[in-house]
């Protein structure tokens, strides 16, 4: 027996990592994300030049930075996507705790970059926004709690996660960062919905959000101005929104031509919040529709794959991750198209940004890891006659 074994080539028990990854990963989503990143670079070539000129930097300084951070983000995404769901959960929980502490420390060590809201840590070469990293962490933690609550005799995870959500939303509102607060709340709401919330309570939550929005409208001039500007039938062309709308109209179906756009020179946020306006002006409706289609592919494919998922935690975490990603993109584009009140939110993977790009890469990596093809006990179902 012994010699038969001795000296034989070692055989690994499982499938090799890379082929397995390639076989099980959602290649559509992967390609869509990569495409979005490339589009971001393409638009950055146009949109970030004015900013570089203003700051007396070489014209493509921000493109180079974007390329660097984007590559890092893609690497982070690929690495994360290779993790098992369990490992994702473990690391995410740790990450969540770190990010949460970072969030709490903001009022003491943070900086507002003169924008009136304490959201960032300045690291010299880049700035880090803890809430960007908190978002995927929170999704994972909340999904874990909600999934645990589904076990017979499990902990009251729904209440715990809701309280956690409320605390984070409260901190974010105090910063104030209504956009991230809304995203967190939305992410939790979606997971709660999928985990089987009663519709009555769901409407209760919607009502609560409406009351909160009303309170914000009545107490904050800033919020009231944004909403009034949205409700007003006339658009003041001197506002960012006015420029953005005009840029979309100027672009028409095929755009005014590469580098010919004007809006990037008038909009201070052309390279971040209003990158879609730059895209619409220079490349026309074609590119805009392509971008929308790419986001739709990511969200819808992820959701469809999660329909087949049997593990409640993976299902919920994936849903939350895909939804906040999609909603962020939708809000950004909806604002530019005047479907929503003005709210500064970046277009994930396309807008210029350092830490947010890496956080986005990690989040998408987690989504990819969660939506990988796994044996789903289909045979067992068949045997028990519960086949679909």
């Amino acid at each position: 027996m012994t010699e038969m074994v001795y000296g034989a080539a070692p055989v690994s028990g499982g499938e090799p990592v890379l082929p397995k990854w390639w076989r099980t990963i959602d290649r559509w989503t992967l390609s869509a994300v990569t495409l979005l990143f490339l589009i971001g670079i393409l638009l950055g070539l146009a949109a970030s030049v004015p900013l570089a000129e203003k700051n007396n930097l070489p014209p493509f300084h921000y493109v180079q930075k974007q390329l660097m951070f984007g590559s890092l983000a893609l690497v982070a995404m690929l690495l994360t996507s290779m993790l098992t769901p369990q490992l994702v959960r473990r690391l995410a929980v740790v990450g969540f705790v770190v990010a949460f502490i970072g969030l709490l420390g903001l009022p003491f060590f943070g900086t507002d970059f003169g924008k009136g809201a304490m959201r960032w840590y300045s690291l010299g070469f880049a700035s880090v926004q803890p809430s960007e990293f908190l978002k995927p962490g929170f999704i994972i933690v909340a999904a874990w709690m909600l999934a645990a609550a589904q076990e017979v005799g499990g902990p009251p995870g729904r209440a715990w996660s809701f309280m956690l959500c409320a605390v984070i939303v409260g901190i974010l509102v105090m910063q104030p960062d209504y956009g991230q607060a809304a995203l967190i709340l939305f992410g939790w709401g979606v997971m709660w919905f999928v985990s089987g919330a009663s519709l009555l309570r769901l409407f209760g939550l919607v009502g609560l959000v409406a009351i909160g929005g009303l309170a914000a409208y009545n107490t904050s001039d800033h919020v009231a101005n944004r909403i009034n500007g949205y409700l007003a039938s006339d658009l003041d062309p001197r506002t960012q929104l006015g420029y953005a709308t005009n840029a979309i109209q100027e672009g028409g179906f095929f755009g005014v031509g590469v580098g010919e756009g004007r809006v990037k020179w008038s909009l201070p946020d052309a390279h971040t919040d209003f990158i879609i306006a730059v895209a619409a002006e220079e490349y026309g409706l074609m590119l805009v529709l392509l971008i929308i289609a790419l986001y739709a592919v990511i969200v819808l494919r992820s959701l469809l794959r999660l329909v087949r998922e049997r593990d409640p935690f993976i299902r919920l975490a994936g849903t939350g991750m895909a939804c906040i990603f999609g909603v962020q993109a939708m809000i950004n584009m909806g604002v530019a198209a005047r479907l929503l009140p003005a709210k500064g939110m970046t277009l994930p993977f396309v807008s210029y940004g350092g830490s947010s790009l890496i956080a986005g890469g990690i989040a998408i990596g987690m989504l990819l890891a969660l939506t990988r093809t796994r044996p789903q006990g289909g045979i067992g179902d068949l045997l028990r006659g519960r086949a679909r």
Partner: protein
Amino acid sequence: MIRRPLRPLARILQARARGENPDAIERENLRLRHEVSRDADRERAESRLFVLGLCFALAFAGVGLRMGVLASTKPSEPRVAQGGAGIVATRAEIQDRRGRILATNLETAALYVHPHELVDPARAARELAKLFPDLDEARMLADFTGPRKFLWLRKVMSPEQQQAVHDIGEPGLLFATREMRLYPNGALAAHVLGGAAFDREDVRAAEIIGTAGVERSFDARLRDPGRANDPLQLSLDLTAQTAMEDVLASGMTLMNAKGAAGVLMDVHTGEVIAIASLPDFDPNARPAPPTKGDPTASPIFNRSVQGVYELGSTFKIFTVAQAMDLGLVNPETMIDTKGPMVKGRHKITDFRNYGPELSVDKVIVKSSNIGTARIALMIGAERQKAFLDLMGLTEATNIEISEARSGKPLLPPRWSDIVTMTVSYGHGFSTTPLHLAAGYAMIANGGTRVEPTLLRRDTPQYGPRVVSAKTAAQSLAMLRHVVTEGTAKVAEVPGYQVAGKTGTADKPKPGGGYYKEKVIATFASVFPADAPRYVLVVTLDEPVNTMGREPTRTAGSTAAPVAAELIRRIAPLLDLKPRIDPVQLDGITLTSN
């Protein structure tokens, strides 16, 4: 401690009875229940995930659709949105009864400065001071280099001035679009039109509001954006108005008067065809109200609707008409005119002694104060006051000139017998010339009241009846006699059968009492007497006719000739044909065989 129920109880009890450990059974049961709930959860989650996916698909489609709609709309030139309370700069035109323009708008520009955008403030101030001598260079330079970010320099400019400012080439000098009110006829009908001024203004537009006259009384209607292209048509006739002001101005000079007022009114419709007050002003540059001196001497004071005067003997016809209407007298009734007539401390005299008695007709023709006072005593205070009320002589006229509201008649505080007597011949009771015109229109149109109006109307007014048609006809005949054989012979205009009454009233002193040498001379007339169409009231302030051997001040020699000239000029303009009676062929019998 929290007790958990043992499930399935029956099997566990059996196992216990058999002495087996029931934990395995319990765990198996738990696993089964878990599986069931997981399946239920998963099925629910499946459907909810589909719902979620559908929502996202729809939302993405919506964003795409919206982008498509935006991309397919034409980009409009970025335009600053007008706020909710935008300034409406439009103002309707004003025309005369034949559609000739009295007031219109002209595009112009206002000049304002963004001092921080000036390249060379010193040069800008220097050039501007050269262009506009009324601007002070030193002060402008101080403003331009001061902390202000915005200041107005001029409200209106001529196109040449605008071009010159543009040629200075300063980016900080900016033009604001304006529409200004223009009165192309200058001072013509100045008191009717009044004037307009800028109210709220910004760099896009300025609001024009009426400050006086019809511009003020019709301000809301003229500013109504819905009626911007619908001109306001007045009853004035531009040619008649021109003749009125022309003749009145000459008459004022000839008669050495310090002021004059004239009202020409249609007796049936109440339309004011021409109305003037001299001295006047140019409404394009309306003078500010005087801050010192007599406000009634200012050119902006409207003597015809605002000025209240004792209009003297012109009132006698009202007294006589009322007495005839009441049946107290008829034109042939003889009235005692022995003078002087003493009543208490007052003494009433006539201009000349007209003998012991006169017929009512002669009382008017000769203008006897004593005769009129006696008739007034027959009427009594109560009925006299009621009659004046009925004629509308005791309250301000409703004419559409904003100043007319202040033209409220001055009534005697107590209506004693002596007041009744003086009021009967137009003393101690002050009204505007327009009131008088309305009163004469009543007599001329057959006895019904008319309200004077400045709006064009084509139908007669049928106001309340004041006196019977017969009384009106008899009164008119008396007025005609005044011109043919009485105090106003100079007022006869061949072919136009003028009927009228003179009135010469001493001017009251501000402190009380009357001036001896200062009079208000009025001639109120109706023409043509056989089919009355128009009433004309001419009032001269302190006239002296120095053309004769000795100066005279009576209305017959001052106001009446001016009125006659007015009728001579205006009647043909109003398409009134002169009627010349055929020559009587005395002693020749026309026969035919």
